[in-house]
């Protein structure tokens, strides 16, 4: 079975899991939540299998490398990271809405990867700049960070919705205080992972390009993202900010994440144009 075929199945598994999580949240049904969790675990297991199959397949093609090297592989790994972060950390909050959020994001990413015409899902050989042991640690830490920021973005949007609107569908949303707490926790973890991602990137750049920091657009934008989340943490820890203002910074931060991830490649050109 080809890895891309498995990924297309996993896409629908995540969609189904998101839907069932939503149902279990709305009707507070525990058995339904167990089913959603089972689907999520099944999804990530299949996705991990697809990852390994693709990895093995690349060796069979004689261009063996970990499948974290082009846009398709990165977006697939982004979706994996979100589910992984949810299962490892998000589940502790015992709220099915967060499960629905994580699966929804993972579904959107995989759907985009499969359906968008300009994403090449073929295994490509590694260009010389990417042939480094730093590739794995740099990409994994960056995308786990992005995954945390994606979940915090989701909870921030829910927070603002809860604050802004009243009435039937909005009232069942979790307490604002809870959403605020999840946003903060996710950003704390994401910030540490992003720092690690930038450091591993700097170490790699020093090796490949002879300098650890060169104000390449991707580097500059990752620093901007880092500064926004640093501001978030300082506002919380020093000033004690909570609620709406924090949600807005979190959303703003995620916009910077997306720009670092996509915008830099599509809008600005630089050394990271291969992603």
């Amino acid at each position, binding site marked *: 079975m080809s890895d891309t075929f498995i990924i297309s199945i996993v896409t629908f598994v995540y969609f189904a899991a998101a839907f069932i999580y939503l149902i279990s949240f709305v009707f507070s049904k525990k058995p339904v939540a167990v089913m959603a969790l089972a689907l999520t675990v099944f999804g990530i297991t299949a996705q991990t299998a697809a990852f390994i199959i693709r990895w093995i397949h690349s060796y069979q093609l004689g*261009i063996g490398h970990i499948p974290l090297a082009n846009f398709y592989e990165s977006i697939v790994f982004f979706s994996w990271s979100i589910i992984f972060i949810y299962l490892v950390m998000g589940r502790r909050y015992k709220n099915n809405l967060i499960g629905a959020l994580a699966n929804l994001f993972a579904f959107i990413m995989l759907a985009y990867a499969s359906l968008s015409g300009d994403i090449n899902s073929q295994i*490509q*050989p590694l*260009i*010389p*700049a990417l*042939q*480094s042991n730093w590739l794995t640690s740099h990409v994994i830490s960056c995308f786990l960070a992005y995954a945390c920021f994606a979940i915090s973005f989701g909870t921030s949007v829910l927070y603002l919705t809860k604050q802004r609107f009243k009435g039937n569908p909005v009232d069942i949303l979790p307490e604002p205080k809870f959403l605020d707490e999840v946003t903060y926790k996710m950003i*704390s*973890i994401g910030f*540490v992972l992003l*720092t*690690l991602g930038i*450091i591993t990137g*700097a*170490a790699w750049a*020093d*090796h*490949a*390009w*002879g*300098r*650890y*920091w060169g*104000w390449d657009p991707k580097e500059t934008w990752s620093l901007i993202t880092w500064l926004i989340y640093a501001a978030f943490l300082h506002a919380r820890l020093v000033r004690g900010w909570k609620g709406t203002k924090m949600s807005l910074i979190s959303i703003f931060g995620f916009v910077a994440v997306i720009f670092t991830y996509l915008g830099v490649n599509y809008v600005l050109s630089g050394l990271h144009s291969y992603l």
Partner: protein
Amino acid sequence: MYHSWWFTLLLILLSVNIIACTAKRIPRIIKLTLPEKNKFDDRIFGSSQINKTIQCHKSLPDLEQEITPLLKTLVSLPIQVRKDDKSYFFSEKGRYSRMGFIFIHFSILLILGGGLIGAIRGFDGQMNIVEGKIADTIFLYGGKGAKKLGFQVRCDDFSIDFYKTGQPKEYRSDLTILENGKPITSKAIRVNHPLLYKGFKICQATYGIAGTANFQIVVKNEKTGKETALTLNLMEKTSLPDSKSLFAIGRFIPDHQNRGPAVLGVLIEPGKAHDMLWLFKDHNQQKRDLSFILKGFDTRYYTGIQVSRSPGVHIVWAGCILIMAGFMLSLFFIHTKVWLQISERKDGCEIKIAASVNRNRKDFEEKLEKLVIRLQAE
């Protein structure tokens, strides 16, 4: 922009800001990190972050027995003393948690400081060396002139390797470092595999074609059927066998009319106008009684290597390690202190609990509540 004076000034202002903001918190952090003085002080009860007083129907020795393992799971193995018929416990963990704050902010200063040293005393530039040649001067980036390295670099060979798809697989330069003309060390550098020498980092940056040489041409005399192999350089005349004519290569074009590399052959016969003919690789071309085939040629590459020196880089790496250590301390350690005082009452004991945590208070309170329930259970 990033190398301008005002950008450097902004970074220095940021450093001053970090120093000013963190300095005022440091004395308190150090005080809280030092060992607790009031381990068995009555005043702590009722005046801590978390305070509780509970009653239970158990004897003092029983409670003492029960509390030690419970505190060990919740916090750490407690210290116990007896004073005036009362039993005191003190248990603490994660004392260095707050040091994370100092590590993180100090590491930012280290990274900025290391960067500043690099910006002032470091440099980077590039030099192009043709295969077989020696170079000793780099051209600094940003048009900041040339700089002699103090040693020489010889490019022994450059090679480029492609995947079947046509994408580049490897750029490789075999370099030799020379001091006063004497070879010191040799290394093949590739992208991601630089050469370090005397604090200089030498990286593969680019390459290009410096020229072509040794054109191999086979000439066949159609009358006699005799073939002759020639090896020629550009503009080099040679006489053809069994003929008064001379032959030379006037031009080389890497891709002529999208038909691949070609050379312009010139056939010179005394007293006649020159004949010109384009020779493509492995294609027969006839002129008069002679036919020519271009069999091959050598490409001479130059390698573009980047040479850089960043004196502050070790300070930057120290800062990076320190910031991660700081995050680990802050994330995985919670400074937790628990004080307990047990005094005997008529039908059991009274337990006073005082506790403080520097993070995740809610989680801790839930766990403490469980401990209380365990103590009160019969």
